[in-house]
């Protein structure tokens, strides 16, 4: 099996120390996390992790099962890039004098879907959002003009086929504690999104 980029989505309780618990599942196996984002989800109080790694599906599947085993994790699943809509945001700081004199700023902005966030006498900050290739392309363009600083955010991703987690969570909550059989009935309906 060949390695490729996988985006792991994890729905969790908002619990101190959970980030560490999830991160060590990767570091224990000497797997580097390419990108990690935590954010609120569509449900108040429920957090959502987006983790990007470059691995084989077999490895990713085992990791997801280990993640889901954690007490505060509601659900974890993984997707390839063609199954998700994803974005990363990047900021570029360049000297205003250089960029104003030597580049066609207007064209730059249009071609790369960039915005000027701040324009000062000494520097200008551009912002662009897109896939990694797109944000990287703009680095190449700006480098000749003396790129002072560059930063890119973690990936945020939404699964194309998902109907959202809200309904599922309500089902989670509606289940009376204890009765394993009832839980099964519900889990059986959730083939589409649930990884196991």
């Amino acid at each position, binding site marked *: 099996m060949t390695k490729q980029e996988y985006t792991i989505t994890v729905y*969790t*309780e908002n619990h*101190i*120390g959970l980030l*560490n*618990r999830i991160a*060590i599942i990767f570091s*224990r196996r000497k797997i580097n996390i390419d990108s990690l984002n935590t954010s609120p989800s569509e449900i108040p109080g429920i957090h959502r992790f987006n983790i990007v790694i470059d691995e084989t599906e077999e490895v990713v*599947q*085992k990791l997801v*099962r*280990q993640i*889901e*085993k954690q*007490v*505060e*994790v*509601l659900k974890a699943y993984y997707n390839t890039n063609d199954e998700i809509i994803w974005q990363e945001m990047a900021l570029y700081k360049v000297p205003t004098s250089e960029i104003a004199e030597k580049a066609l700023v207007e064209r730059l902005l249009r071609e790369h879907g960039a915005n000027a966030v701040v324009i000062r006498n000494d520097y200008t900050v551009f912002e662009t959002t897109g896939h990694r290739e797109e944000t990287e392309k703009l680095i190449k363009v700006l480098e000749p003009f003396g790129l002072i600083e560059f930063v890119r955010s973690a990936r945020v991703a939404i699964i194309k086929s998902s109907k959202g987690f809200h309904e599922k969570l309500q089902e*989670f*909550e509606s289940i009376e*504690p*204890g009765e*394993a059989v009832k*839980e*099964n009935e519900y*889990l*059986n309906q959730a083939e589409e999104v649930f990884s*196991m």
Partner: protein
Amino acid sequence: MEATLQQPPTETKEQKVSLITGSEIVLKSLISEKVKTIFGYPGGAIMPIYDALFDYNDQLEHILVRHEQGAIHAAQGFARTSGEVGVVFATSGPGATNLVTGLADAMIDSTPLVCITGQVFAHLLGTDAFQETDVINITTPVTKWNYQVTDASEIADTLAKAFYIARSGRPGPVLIDITKNAQIQQVAFIGYTPCRHIRSYRPKPIVRQEYIDAAADLINKAERPYVIFGQGIILGKAEEEFKTFIEKSGIPAAWTLLGLSALPTGHPLNVGMLGMHGNYGPNVLTNECDVLIAIGMRFDDRVTGRLDKYARQAKVVHLDIDPAEIDKNVKTTVPVWGDCKETLPLLTEKIISRDHSAWLQRFRDFAKEEYKEVISKDFNPGGDILNMAEVIDALNELTGGDAVIVTDVGQHQMVASRYAKFTKSKSNVTSGGLGTMGFALPAAIGAKFGAPDRTVVAIAGDGGIQMTIQELGTIMQYQTDVKIIILNNNFLGMVRQWQELFNDRRYSFVDITSPDFVQVAKGYHIEGEKVVARTDLKSALKRMLDHSGAYLLEVIVGKENNVFPMVPQGCGVGEIRLK
């Protein structure tokens, strides 16, 4: 409504305003969880809890150990023989870090524990205060769950969660770190509600009938089906369900190190032990069976040997409560997720009784060969020097397989596991996954508290016993009736065996000297004796078992004896060596 009106209003009011300390809430919570025994060691940051314990001495028995590692191993031993959650108290800093080995051991061997550690005052967190250490982050990889409490109002609910998580699903250790201010703080306590549900936590996966059907179909069509079972049977309290399953199906069954005692060793379908030092047939025939039914076991590398040479021909049915175990090491044809207490009866119902006597005979033939080549020589080595196996053999004869055997780690552990007879479940206590030397002595103390009516025999080597020998002090103080056998070969025998076989006999730092163990025991007012001659062995063992109270028996065994059979590292189970 009427009842409420009739109640004197003052009483409810008083109940509402009664304030108690966080420490007392800890103890009341433990009592509500029916905890009777705590293994622990006091210290600065847990002093308020110990102060409260002074008043609860009649309801909670506290066993003062000699080292926190001893406390947690004792709690493990307690959990393993009682089937209940083991409870540990330790202070912050070094008290807590001394628990780490035991936590790792309990994590990998799925032992339910609740460890309560004291922590510095909340306002001192992160200031490098005296005996402050980041216990939560240190223990995260080795706990099923952990949590730091900084406010007394959180204590009852947190402990309720802790017990629920520790014992439900695949059990494991939980650590609760309580800051000193929360222990002192007074809050209203309205009572303890046990936890039965956590929204984000699924202790048991779905039992899916389609997988039960598929598994039954595979098993019913199999010509050479083979069951391998682990501790899951014991943890799931499914010994009867398991026995019914194999008896109806007539399938031979072999055990992992931790599965030992789930099925009586004398059962006609019990074909022996799996793994690196397991029995001949169970290893070789793994690569000849057509359907491998793994129950409550996790395909540890010591069981499988080289994975690409492990049961490649077989279809694999894997029953496990932990979905993360499915396909982790061995690819499963049919995963039967769920608690084996529920899945085994469902499977048994669908199984057709079939005659597998010819297949079972294959195991018997291998057993005969193993007996001729290995076992008979182990039991009758000739010469003047005793062999470890002889000691176990004699012990079996005297106990009839009714004793709890607690082993340490190394050669004696493999010999004891291979040869000890068991008639009851929850009788084998050993450090399997982590292989913690020093486990046996403290674990045996806990095992005795967990099964007070049973004979508990700790078996350790001369190396392992010296790692936690201070717990003889605990045995002395509580007059714990633990029988201790030290199989002394004056070597760190297992490492020496490997050095002999794989490192050209370069015996690098395995030559260990020992104190006079009998004198050491005497110093702790524990009776003991040393056996060198074969003729003295049985009578000495009998004296040990008949003695009321703890007894230490040191047996001098052959210096350079090896444990066989053996699957050398990097080899497949089919390449098992008899010598």
